């Protein structure tokens, strides 16, 4: 019995101080100074106005799961006061010194920075209110992507020309933000546009479908290229070519073209063809719902009940 208690106590002690390596910094400057190889991960919360985020400072941020998930990053918590007194103002300023605070949509938020202080991901809103294990998993996953990106970029530093552009393209990992200077470097390294990455980064459906000779920003419908030309272009870019643009970008192109045709003549048979292709690319995406809603509203196709709720949740 005593032995069991002893073992349990021992486990308790060790689980509380498990082998995480994250470093808790007091200020952003201190976090940066340490040159952490997994960057800096910052928790923003509202100590004098938001009970949940304050509670989560202990239950989430300071938990061993999150500390473990943060790997070799420097960890920092930043209070965002509603009505700070002078001391709190001074203290908050000192903590944030040197940090480029990103646009936070909702508190609490976990902002993941590179060692240089460039933001690559924000966990906020629904994502941060998932259970602790889920949040830890998200941090781990993002950190993994960040490490991956870092390794690619390291290689890219030594590369030149199209090879460099390709590596930078590989570093545009889905799930984290692209490096701030990615577009500039890709364009400089691949001036002829041999790689698709610059096109992906600069993707703008209206720019693609706009008649560049027509200059009237107030009437976008008037400046689109002719419907036949639009269908031909979209067929080329989104149907025949499956590699230049990302799947959701191809869907957007198809959707935009279909909506364009619908506005001109909703009986145009090509609309359904474009819709079909959207569904083929990803039947569980927002664009698939776009197809169903559009067909129900404009083409008189009755909407089928599906498991949308389930999908949305999964999303």
């Amino acid at each position, binding site marked *: *019995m005593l032995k069991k208690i002893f073992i349990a106590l021992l486990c308790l002690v060790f689980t509380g101080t498990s082998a995480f390596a994250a470093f808790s910094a007091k200020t952003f400057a201190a976090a940066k100074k340490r040159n952490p190889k997994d960057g800096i991960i910052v928790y923003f919360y*509202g100590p*004098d*106005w*938001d*009970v*949940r*985020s304050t509670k989560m400072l202990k239950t989430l941020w300071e938990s061993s799961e999150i500390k473990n998930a943060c790997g070799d990053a420097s960890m920092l918590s930043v209070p*965002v*006061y*509603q*009505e700070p007194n002078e001391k709190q103002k001074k203290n908050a300023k000192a903590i944030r010194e040197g940090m480029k605070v990103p*646009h936070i*949509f*909702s*508190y609490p938020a976990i902002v993941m920075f590179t060692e240089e202080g460039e933001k690559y991901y924000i966990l*906020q*809103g*629904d994502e941060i*209110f998932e259970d602790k294990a889920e949040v830890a998993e998200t941090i781990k996953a993002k950190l993994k992507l960040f490490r991956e990106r870092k390794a690619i970029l390291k290689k890219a530093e030594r590369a030149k020309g199209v090879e460099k552009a390709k590596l930078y393209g590989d570093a545009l990992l889905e799930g984290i933000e692209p490096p701030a200077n990615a577009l500039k470097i890709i364009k400089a390294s691949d001036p002829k546009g041999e790689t698709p990455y610059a096109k992906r980064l600069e993707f703008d*459906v*209206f720019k693609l479908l706009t008649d560049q000779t027509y200059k009237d920003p107030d009437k*976008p*419908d008037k400046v*689109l290229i002719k419907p036949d030309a639009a269908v031909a272009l979209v067929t080329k870019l989104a149907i025949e070519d499956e590699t230049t643009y990302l799947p959701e970008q191809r869907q*957007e192109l198809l*959707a*935009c073209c*279909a*909506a*364009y045709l619908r*506005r001109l003549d909703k009986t145009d048979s090509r609309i359904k063809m474009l819709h079909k292709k959207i569904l083929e690319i990803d039947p569980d995406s*927002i664009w698939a*719902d*776009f197809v*169903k*809603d*559009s067909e129900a*509203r404009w083409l008189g196709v009755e*909407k089928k009940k599906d498991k*949308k709720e389930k999908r*949305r949740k999964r999303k």
Partner: protein
Amino acid sequence: MKCNRNFCLLTFTRFKENDAVKYTPKFIIALCSFFLVLNPCVPTAFADGSPRPKTKQASVKKSSGKKAPEKKTGNAKKPESKDAKKATPTGGEWGDPGKLERKIEQSVAKNFKTWSPAELDKFFKDEENLKALAKWELLRALQEDEEEFKSFKMSVKKSDVRRFYGEFSDDLEWIEGYLYTAPPKNAHFAMRLLRAFIEKDEEVKSVPAIKKIATGVVGEFSRRGWFDDEFETDPELKIKNGPTRIYKRFKFFSESWREKRLNKIFDDLDFWDTRIIVGVTGRTNNIYFGSEESLRWGQDNVKLPEAGYASPRDIFQMPYRLWNKVGDSVHTSDYYEPFMSWYGRNQLKRAREVGCVCGGVSHYGATAACANGIPAVTMGEPGHCAFATRQKGKWRDNNSVVWDRSLHWRLWDETSWQFLHLTQAVYDDVKTAYAAFRAGTLARIVASEKKKPTPERVFELYEYALEKQPINFPIWREYLEFAQAQKKDKAFWKNAQKKILDAFLPEFPDVAATLLGKIVYPNLLPLIDNDDEKIALFSNFWEKSEGFGCGRWDCEASWEYEIRALGGNAESNKAFRKNYDKENPVKPPNSGAAGRYLEKIAPLVASKKDYAKCFELWKSGTPRK
């Protein structure tokens, strides 16, 4: 402690069910836990042995009111003691509403010999008198609809309905919180809803924050005529589902408060500003900003400190798009149509991801603020939509392009910007505001005496109310309307003008101009034959008004009105503000009385920074910017 207790219970249950020897060690652990529960070393403050309160917050935060005194909150589920049971009002008097009304009127009259201010002060110090006034006020509100009042009289034959009215009217803070924080329109519907809420959640009666939320929801939904389910398209279901939807709103906010999801500011709100939050608009033009899904999402995904909702940088979280991603214009319903299924009724999320323009941005900001317990309102501007949020007790505009605003939320029908500041000022001092409203009720009671009317006493009572709170706009309006019905003479109206200027200047010139333009001048001007006397009257205002006060206001409309009044157009006297076309203004005539008016006014306004430029532009017929 709760866990320990549960653990004990669990362990004992298992012990009974299983082999005693096998569970001996567990029994020892359970015993230890039991002793831990009874640990005499635990500080008494934390060793409360009373049953677990229904909500954690209810037990921790017993008081959540700022201004009005809070009553001690207890556990709604806690069995009432014998004494408490005795004290619970049965509401027997509500069984005969007519009798109750007469009884109050008679008892009020008995209180006074001379109706002197000293006597009035004494009367208002007695809580029972205040309760009587509130009951009378509620009865008056219930009588607004004859048919409904008949059904009310039938309903109070039931003891539970009487008990509800008894409890509601015996809680002075509660009944006044309903009656004096907004006009109690459709009171019958409101009371029915409140009763239904209590049936579902007893803490409506006992926990101040829940009480405010419930009262706010019923008050706003009934006041604004939101009876049905605005999200339902089937006409029958629309009516049938109505109260369920309203209950959902109550449930959303009460749960949010209990789960501490609202900004801490919410805990200090009063009845009136709680209304703004819980009464956030549900659907506008088929767009579901205030749906439950939307509010819930806003609470988790647009949670900002108070200042965040007042900051354009923080709240612009969406693409500003005149055409959606596929080129449909925001000016058609097609803009969101292809994205309806994906987002369902979660308009906040739809706005953030699909995009929007001014209306969407403003509703996004205001709805998200309200969902998080921060008062915010949307408002129209010419060709634009803006919103305002309250920060440290002051209203600040956001996403605004011009000063000319029309509030979408207001208490006293007036929509201009200054009225929001005025509402805040009136309720900044709830005690004084209620004192004025109570005196207003007393004035109404006296005015209701038909056999031996004493209008002079009614005037005295209104004046007493206005002495308590000179900026109480609704009392002013009622007082002046009563004077209009009594066909008061020129001296009265001239004196009224003076008193209005004293009360509302320098802070609220727009409010003063509104009262003058809508009630005082239409009654006074026909009694004045001499144009110069009218000019002198109008000059009083411009002499005393030093500037815009709490915000730019439509001073051009006032000049326009006064010019027309001097032109002898009697109809225009009633159309305050309606005659002024800011885009195509007409150069005012400069001969005769109008010319003399301009001559008199010009030096008065020229010396005032705020008015000088506006006056020059108006006088030359230049469209207003």
